[in-house]
C-alpha cells in the first residue's frame, strides 16, 4: 500500500509562551486538493513551514510521500515545492533569468531547465514578459511567475500559502483555474486560505484550523451541512404578512416575526415556486437578501456549540 501524499500526526508548535499548533493531525490523498482554512494568525503558515522542512515541530510527525520531513528532509525537498505567502521572485532579474536560476538551484540539467522554462512561460502567458525585469511586473504576473518557478522541478506535492490573497478578482479566477489544471495532472495540492468560498470552489477536502487544532474536516458539502447552506432572507413589512408567508412556505418565523429564511442551495425551481407562491397571495417582501455562510459562521457553528471537539465526516 502506498503512503498518503501528506500525513500529519499530533503536530505541536509553540513560540515562547504562545501555543500555535496544539495537536494537528490530518491526511491528504494523492492527487487531492486539500485546503487548510483558518483566520489570520491561526497557524496556517506555521503548518506549511513545518511540512516544507523550513522549521521543526516541537512534537508529532509529518511525512510527505512516506518521507519524514525532519529525518528525510533531503528526500522531501526533492518532491515538494513551496510558494509562500509573499512572492519569492528576484525583482532585479528577468522572468526567464528567475526560472533559469531556480532551475539550476533545483539541480536540473541545463536542457531540462531551458525546456521547462519555455513551457512554463507559455503556460502562464508570460512569454512576452520573459525578458523584462520582474520589478516592472504587476502583482498578478509576479504570482504567476512565482507559481511557474514552483513547477520547474515537476514536484509531486505543491504547497501554496494563501495563493490568492491580494489578487484582484480576475487574477483570482485564473489562479483557481490554474490550480484545478495542476490537480488534473495528478499533482497533490496543499493550499491555505482565509476564504470559505475559495476552499469550497477548489478543495476536495477541507480542514478548519482554529486555536491550534483541526476543528472540522471533510468535503465542502459535509462542512456546509454543519453550518447550513446559502439562504435567501426575506423581510416583511408587517407581522401579518410574515405569518401568512411562513404558513405558505412551511417555514418557522425568525427574528421579531418579520423575517423568514429559505434554503437557496437547491435548484432555481424551488426558489421560483416559493417566490411565485408569495406573489400569488399578494405578499410583497420588503427586502430580499442572499446570505452566504462565512468563515465566521463555520467558527460559530463549530467552536460555539461543541466545545471544540474534533468532528470527522466521510
Amino acid at each position: 500500500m502506498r503512503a498518503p501524499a501528506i500525513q500529519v500526526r499530533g503536530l505541536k508548535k509553540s513560540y515562547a509562551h504562545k501555543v500555535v499548533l496544539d495537536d494537528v493531525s490530518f491526511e491528504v490523498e494523492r492527487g487531492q486538493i486539500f485546503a487548510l482554512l483558518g483566520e489570520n494568525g491561526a497557524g496556517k503558515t506555521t503548518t506549511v513551514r513545518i511540512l516544507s522542512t523550513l522549521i521543526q515541530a516541537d512534537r508529532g510527525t509529518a511525512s510527505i510521500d512516506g518521507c519524514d520531513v525532519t529525518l528525510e528532509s533531503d528526500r522531501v525537498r526533492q518532491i515538494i515545492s513551496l510558494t509562500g505567502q509573499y512572492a519569492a521572485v528576484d525583482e532585479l532579474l528577468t522572468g526567464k533569468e528567475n526560472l533559469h536560476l531556480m532551475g539550476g538551484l533545483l539541480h536540473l540539467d541545463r536542457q531540462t531547465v531551458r525546456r521547462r522554462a519555455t513551457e512554463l512561460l507559455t503556460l502562464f502567458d508570460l512569454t512576452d514578459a520573459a525578458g523584462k525585469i520582474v520589478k516592472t511586473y504587476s502583482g498578478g504576473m509576479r504570482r504567476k511567475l512565482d507559481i511557474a518557478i514552483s513547477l520547474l522541478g515537476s514536484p509531486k506535492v505543491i504547497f501554496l500559502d494563501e495563493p490568492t490573497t491580494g489578487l484582484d478578482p480576475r487574477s483570482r479566477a485564473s489562479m483557481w483555474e490554474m490550480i484545478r489544471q495542476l490537480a488534473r495532472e495528478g499533482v497533490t495540492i496543499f493550499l491555505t486560505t482565509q476564504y470559505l468560498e475559495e476552499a469550497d470552489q477548489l478543495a476536495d477536502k477541507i480542514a478548519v484550523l482554529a486555536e491550534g487544532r483541526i476543528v472540522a474536516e471533510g468535503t465542502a458539502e459535509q462542512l456546509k451541512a454543519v453550518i447550513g447552506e446559502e439562504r435567501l432572507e426575506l423581510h416583511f413589512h408587517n407581522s401579518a404578512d410574515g405569518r401568512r408567508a411562513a404558513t405558505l412556505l412551511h417555514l418557522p418565523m425568525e427574528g421579531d416575526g418579520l423575517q423568514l429564511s429559505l434554503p437557496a442551495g437547491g435548484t432555481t425551481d424551488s426558489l421560483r415556486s416559493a417566490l411565485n407562491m408569495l406573489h400569488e397571495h399578494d405578499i410583497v417582501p420588503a427586502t430580499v437578501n442572499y446570505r452566504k455562510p462565512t468563515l465566521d459562521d463555520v467558527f460559530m457553528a463549530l467552536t460555539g456549540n461543541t466545545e471544540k471537539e474534533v468532528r470527522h465526516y466521510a
Partner: protein
Amino acid sequence: MRRSALYWTLHDSGMMTIRSIRHMLRSPESLLLSVGLPVMLMLLFVYVFGGAIQTGGEYINYIVPGVIVTCVGYGSSMTAMSVALDMNGGLFDRLRSMPARPAALLGGHVLGTYVKSLLGTLLVFLCAIAIGFRPSATLLDWLGIFAILSLFLLAISWLAVVFGLVAGSAETASAFSFFIMFLPYVSSAFVPTETMPSWLHAFAAHQPMTPLIETLRGLLIGTPIGNQAVWAVVWFGGMLLLSATVASILFHRRRKV
C-alpha cells in the same frame, strides 16, 4: 544527477554569485556610487587638504590605501541590504525548501560582494594613477596586496551578511555602511595618527584599519611595515572566521524556530 555534496555546493555558490553580479550590472549606479564617493574623497583630500597635511612624501601616494578601504563601505552595505531582503522576502525560504545547498545561499552573496569590491578597487587604482599615484610595488608586493585585500574584503562581506541576517529590514541593514565607512577616518588612512589627540591616537593606532592600511601602504610605496602585517592578518582573519561562523549559526537557527 548523482554528484558529490561539494560539487553541488560549488555549483550553487556559482549560481548565486552570478545572480549577485547580475544585480550589480542591473543597477550600475550603485557600483559608480561605491567607487565615485571614494574617488571624490581622494580628489578632495589631494587637492584641497593635501597641501596642509605633512606626511613626508607625495600625499597622493599616502592616501590611496585609505581610499580603497573606504570603498568597501558602500558595497558591503548593499550586501547587508540584499541579504536582509532575501531573508525577509521569502526567497531564502523557497531556496531552503529546495535541494540547493544552504552554505551556497550565503556564500553566493559573499563571493558576489568580493568580485564587486575587487572591481571597485581596480577602478580606484586607475583613477589614482591618473592623478599622479606612483606605486613602487614589485610583483611580489602586488601579490601580497591582493592577498591582504582579499582577506579584508571577504571578512567585511561575511560581516555584512551577519548584519543582513540580524537586521529586521533592509533599511536597518543599510546602516551597516556608517559603521564601516567611519572606521578609516579614525585610522592612519588620511593623516598620521601621531597628529591626533592622545586619546584618539590610542584608539586609531589599535583599531583594525590602521594595521591594514599600514601594510597596504608599505607594500605599495615601501614605507616600513614592521609587525603591522601580522596584526592585519590576525584582525581580519579573526573577523572572517567569527563572522562566517555566526552567519551560519544564525542561518541555521532560522530552521529551528
